[in-house]
């Protein structure tokens, strides 16, 4: 456990020491901030804006997660530090889970300032803010974390499979794109009802909107948790296999 915490701290520190993390942080806050401002301006109902905010966060994940995860293994492999790491008395699974926890922690820290948007709304428009319901907001953020966990695990798998960071990022982006655009264009996807149904199941945007409305669907919970476990397991295997 001590090893895990040491590795986790190192991973989180590495995030904050790299300039790319700050670029992502700025990008994320700029897009979500502008997005929320526009949503509040267009919509009168504040909870619809919160649902919209969740979808904007999801859209930002499409860029931020591939960029944050691409370095996890690919960079270490390229610099050779992977060798020093893997010849220390640590297990492959503790390295993988600590790195995962490090990136997820960074992502959660990145999301925290968006809570300020709600606080600011409360300050500026007290009447509207009375409509803010803590339950659906918590549900929405929980779903954001679940989705982020699954795709961070996916991004790490891509990073473990190659020593080229760009390839890792583009592969992650492509798979996430299926979930993103598959959900977004689900009505236009195909006339086949089965394809449309699958599209609906995979639509992360839909899952987010629903949970931010206060409907928590256990199917999406199972989907993202099992995807996380599966991708982490595959990452451990990929690390082993590349030896």
């Amino acid at each position: 456990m001590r090893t895990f915490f040491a590795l986790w701290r190192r991973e989180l520190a590495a995030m904050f020491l790299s300039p790319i993390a700050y670029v992502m942080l700025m990008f994320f806050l700029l897009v979500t901030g502008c997005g929320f401002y526009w949503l509040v301006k267009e919509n009168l109902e504040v909870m619809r804006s919160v649902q919209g905010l969740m979808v904007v966060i999801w859209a930002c994940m499409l860029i931020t997660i591939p960029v944050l995860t691409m370095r996890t293994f690919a960079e270490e492999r390229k610099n050779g530090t992977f060798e020093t790491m893997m010849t220390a008395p640590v297990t492959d699974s503790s390295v993988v889970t600590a790195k995962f926890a490090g990136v997820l922690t960074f992502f959660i820290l990145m999301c925290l300032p968006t809570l300020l948007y709600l606080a600011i709304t409360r300050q500026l428009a007290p009447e509207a803010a009375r409509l803010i319901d803590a339950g659906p907001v918590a549900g929405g953020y929980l779903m954001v974390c679940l989705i982020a966990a699954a795709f961070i695990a996916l991004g790490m798998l891509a990073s473990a499979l190659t020593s080229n960071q760009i390839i890792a990022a583009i592969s992650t982006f492509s798979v996430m794109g299926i979930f993103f655009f598959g959900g977004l264009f689900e009505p236009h996807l195909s006339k086949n009802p089965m394809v449309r149904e699958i599209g609906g199941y995979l639509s992360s945007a839909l899952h987010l909107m629903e949970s931010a409305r206060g409907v928590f669907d256990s199917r999406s919970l199972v989907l993202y948790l099992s995807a996380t476990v599966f991708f982490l397991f595959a990452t451990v295997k990929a690390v082993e296999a590349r030896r």
Partner: protein
Amino acid sequence: MIKVSNLTKQFAGHTAVDDVSFEVKRGEIVGFLGPNGAGKTTTMRMLTGFLHPTRGTVEIAGYNVFEDPIEARRHIGYMPESCPLYTEMRVDEYLKFRAQIKGVARKQIHERRDIVKEQCGLTDVGRRIIGQLSKGYRQRVGLADSLLHDPDLLILDEPTAGLDPNQIREVRELIRQLAERHTLLLSTHILPEVEMTCRRILIINKGKIVASDSPESLQKRLEGDVLISAEIAGDPAAIEATLKNCGMADVVLHEPLETGWNRYRIDSSDPDIRTRVFECAVSKGWKLRELHLESRSLEDIFVAIIRDDKAAEVKP
């Protein structure tokens, strides 16, 4: 300490390490030599458990590296080739992090860190960022890292590669000090390094061990005879003929020095050749001003062994 049996590693299309077996006893200092691409790094990576072999086993301090990797790694301090480090961290931070993941007890982390910093001459650079250090200092950080958990065995892959002569001397001195307390396996292709530090040499070529012995016995094995040099004044043809006819010298080569003097290099199977040359010079009335035994350098041995290996390959 190290027991390697039938170790083989195949990469797509070629065999990097081919059925290698050897043992290293506790307290030994072994130099691992070979031309570039001979399989040194691959072998070392398998010893540390970083690479999995296609066949064969490695035991470190009684633990199988592939079945019991964590226990085995606790006994190894490893410095990979080119010494990769987290360049954005400070020296102290890095060593603390490494001590934590190596399982050094919480209370001992600072103590161990200070000890290895002292050992490796890093006391003044603890606050410096690794990326801003010179290559020599980074190499020391790598060495300090490998010593943190006080391992029985140190495996160093080309510890002096890419350093300037001054830094090489410093690192070599450091290694010599470490050798007093640890079992050491050191790979290099810089021969004087091995000559100065190692008591046993393993030579690997094309994935196979072609020699394993002390530098002295390798020297003996190769020569079986002695090489002397003598400076004698007189007619070189006559002297050469006399030396050869006496049957004491197999090969005589001479190079002219200043007027009248020649230097002769005499290769002979007679260990007493110097006395006989002297007696011969006295009886013939030659002027002799220098007579000494030349030791063959490790470089000659290395080249000869690799060459013999190639020749043996061509024959069948």
